[in-house]
């Protein structure tokens, strides 16, 4: 009898855990959905790109005019192309080529990150530069 009870409790226990799993996964999905919503609600088209290498500013370029920028740092390089208001990496010295295959960016906050070269290309607004950071 007690053995049967033990089996039943184990079953109930696993059912409870599966229920918890589902709640957990749904909660995570909701967080993701909320994040995506915020991104599309508050994400605007930016008008400039900022290039940093290892956290240090390399340069800022306008998105409104077509441009080709060579980001060179020691032996590594990334070629940044600005075309039709979008920025992308044309070619790079990094071994994985992830930055090259990244799609073109134009929305504020979007970025292309080349981990091996420590290069970050991110879109921002020129008029927001001097505003205080309100995000705590």
């Amino acid at each position, binding site marked *: 009898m007690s053995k049967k009870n033990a089996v039943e409790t184990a079953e109930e226990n696993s059912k409870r855990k599966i229920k918890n799993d589902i709640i957990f996964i749904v909660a*995570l999905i909701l967080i993701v959905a909320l994040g995506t919503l915020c991104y599309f609600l508050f994400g605007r088209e930016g008008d400039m790109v900022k290039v940093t290498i290892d956290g240090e500013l390399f340069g800022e370029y306008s998105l409104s005019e077509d441009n080709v920028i060579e980001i060179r740092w020691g032996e590594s390089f990334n070629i940044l192309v600005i075309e039709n208001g979008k920025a992308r990496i044309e070619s790079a010295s990094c071994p994985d080529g992830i930055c090259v295959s990244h*799609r073109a960016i134009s929305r504020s906050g979007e970025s292309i990150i080349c981990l091996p070269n420590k290069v970050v290309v991110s879109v921002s607004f020129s008029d927001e530069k001097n505003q205080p950071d309100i995000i705590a």
Partner: protein
Amino acid sequence: MEKNKKVKKLTFISICATVAILLSYVEVLLPPIFAAVPGIKIGLPNIAIIFVLYRFGIGEAVAVSFVRIVIISMLFGNPMVFAYSVAGAFLSLLIMTLLKKLDFFSKVGVSVAGGVSHNIGQILMAMLLLETAEIGYYMIVLTFTGIISGSLIGLCAAYLLKCLPMKKI
């Protein structure tokens, strides 16, 4: 007899580490799932890690995870890869151990939490190394894919634990 048991355990954990390394290698060979957003991985080695975590415990899981990261970084990566991997694995193992102790979720839930926290660990490391917060945007996509792959990996690990009974080891 006692020594025999110890050797058996050591051998078994070593095999688990080998499997984890092989799964990492398989993952390196796989084409990127989604070229537009880099960094998405299935997390195949986590099958072995979760298996070891449930069968033996946290110490053994950390050992397997560490051996895997060292070997994979030496074979395919560089110190940067090592830093990212360690950050991800540390947070993921920490969260998975806590959740396992709490006994609140099944293996699938633990695996999902492990997958998502692995991504969070790597993003935090990237923020630290690159000194930029912009990479945080990746978290949205990575959490979503982490849920899917974490569930699948969790199901695989749960099935494996069921099919490999304790007595035979």
